[in-house]
């Protein structure tokens, strides 16, 4: 549904993209994950016809973005990091204008606008100018504008950057709802939790190129499998606990003495927990906490790039 091959984009000497490939299957959510300046926004701008790639090609809904930009535009909705709304128009007027520019007829425009305002909890604010809206309300209205024509493909550029936790959660629900409705979604994010939660596929990019791709599970596996993690009550028992765990799992145990926490790689869940508790108990080790743990996407990113993913400050990814 969204495909790109070998996208390059140079701004003078700055190389924003250097050979990016991507592919989002119909009806799925592809999350493009990367730190600030990785090239996420540039990729979205190319796919939404806002800018031309220096090199490379892309198709959205089967249409070439360079050859038929107008036809691509008729099939997409775009919501950016900076809400593209008219501050002096009301919420309803913004949706009305966008709807009419999508060439929908008057009745459809009014109905769609009312439905979206309702669904996005903006009905009460519908007839106030956008100037008076909070950040979260602007983002919701921006997304509503992107959905006016019920496009088969929707692009969301950092849809939750800068939102408070409540705003973020309500945005997540809306995005999840979109995907359930069969819309193909490409969203960029610098939040690993967001990608983990919403995406079918994740494309990790850094310095303008893809460094990993797959489902959240696949990426986590790439970094190392599941581990059995145990927190014990008394630090002196660490040695005993280590012996028990290493006998059960694969390879050496990782030990965090300060937190009295140990972990060991395991290949299956089958009976592991009960056996571990029994054997630790037999060895006289008291357990505070025990469970399976998969690597987080933070660990994935750290392993792939050698540095942490979340390089705040927020929303500093330059449009270029």
């Amino acid at each position: 549904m969204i495909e790109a091959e070998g996208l390059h984009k140079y701004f003078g000497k700055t190389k924003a993209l250097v050979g990016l490939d991507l592919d989002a299957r119909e009806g799925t959510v592809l999350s493009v994950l990367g730190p600030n300046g990785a090239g996420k926004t540039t990729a979205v701008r190319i796919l939404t016809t806002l800018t031309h790639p220096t090199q490379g090609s892309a198709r959205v809904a089967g249409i070439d973005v360079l050859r038929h930009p107008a036809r691509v535009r008729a099939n997409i909705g775009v919501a950016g990091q900076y809400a593209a709304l008219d501050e002096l128009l009301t919420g309803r007027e913004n949706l009305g204008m966008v709807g009419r520019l999508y060439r929908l007829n008057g009745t459809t425009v009014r109905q769609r606008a009312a439905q979206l305002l309702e669904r996005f909890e903006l009905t009460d604010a519908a007839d106030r100018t956008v100037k008076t809206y909070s950040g979260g309300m602007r983002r919701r209205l921006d997304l509503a504008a992107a959905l006016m024509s019920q496009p088969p493909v929707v692009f969301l550029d950092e849809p939750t950057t800068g939102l408070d936790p409540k705003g973020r959660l309500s945005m997540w629900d809306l995005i999840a709802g979109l995907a359930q409705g069969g819309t193909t979604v490409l969203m960029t994010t610098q939040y690993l939790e967001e990608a983990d939660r919403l995406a079918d596929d994740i494309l990790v990019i850094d310095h303008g190129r893809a460094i990993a791709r797959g489902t959240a599970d696949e990426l986590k596996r790439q970094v190392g499998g599941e581990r059995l993690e145990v927190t014990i009550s008394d630090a002196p028992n660490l040695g005993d606990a280590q012996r028990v765990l290493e006998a059960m799992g694969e390879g050496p145990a990782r030990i965090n003495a300060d937190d009295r926490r140990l972990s060991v790689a395991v290949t299956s869940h089958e009976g592991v927990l009960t056996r571990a508790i029994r054997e630790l108990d037999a060895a006289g080790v008291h357990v505070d906490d025990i469970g399976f743990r998969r690597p987080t996407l933070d660990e994935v990113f750290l392993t792939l790039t050698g540095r942490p993913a979340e390089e705040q400050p927020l929303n500093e990814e330059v449009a270029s």
Partner: protein
Amino acid sequence: MTLAWWTFDSWEMVRRNLIHIKRTPELLLDVTLSPIMFVLLFSIVFGGAINVGVEGGDSQSYTNFLMAGIFVQTVAFAGIYTSVLLANDLQKGMIDRFRSLPMAQSSVLVGRTLTDLLRAALAVAIMWVVGMAVGFRPEGSLAAILLAIGIMLLFGFALSWVGVAAGAAVRTPEALQGIIFAVVFPLTFVSSAFVPIATLPEWLRPFAENQPMTVVVNAVRDLTLGLDLYQDTLPAILWSVGILIVGFPLGIWLYNRRTTQ
């Protein structure tokens, strides 16, 4: 079909601009208050000092002479001011939204220039009334007066497209204000707008007599005052059309280049 959509989209943009004006009426100060001040100050302050002779029409009054200059100056400023309004738009995210919609992209610009044409027309109407109050007595026929209004608005519309080009080329509205001041002021003052050309230093006259501002002012003045008619009418129209022929494609090209970066 395409033309119909283009008209439709352009109207949508005009409508958006008119809502802006309705919600922030101070956007109209430059085409309401400023022209009123100009008419009053020039006619009262300079009225006694400048002898315009027959160029002031039958009554030989300075106010009669002045009005054509004030009309064209105001309309020209309103036209060039399009650049500031466009540059403002370009700084906000709205243009990205428009660019991602299947609309006729140039309609953003057509909507902008048509709105500014309406602003200019409002300014002309206000100045006409204020002018009448301080002694402006047009003596031309109704047809000539309508032609004069058409000529000045066409000139303003043409300059709007120069404004589009400037607004797309220059990064910030503040920089534009400076450029407008440095370019448009000399053009209005070194012209027949406020004083007869004959009173200018000799070395300035060849430029002053032939630059478009003078040609358009003369055409408007002759038509409104019923003077030696139509000598400058055709040249004035040709100047505007010429500016439009260059400014229209240049404006669209610069805008597209700016927004696809």
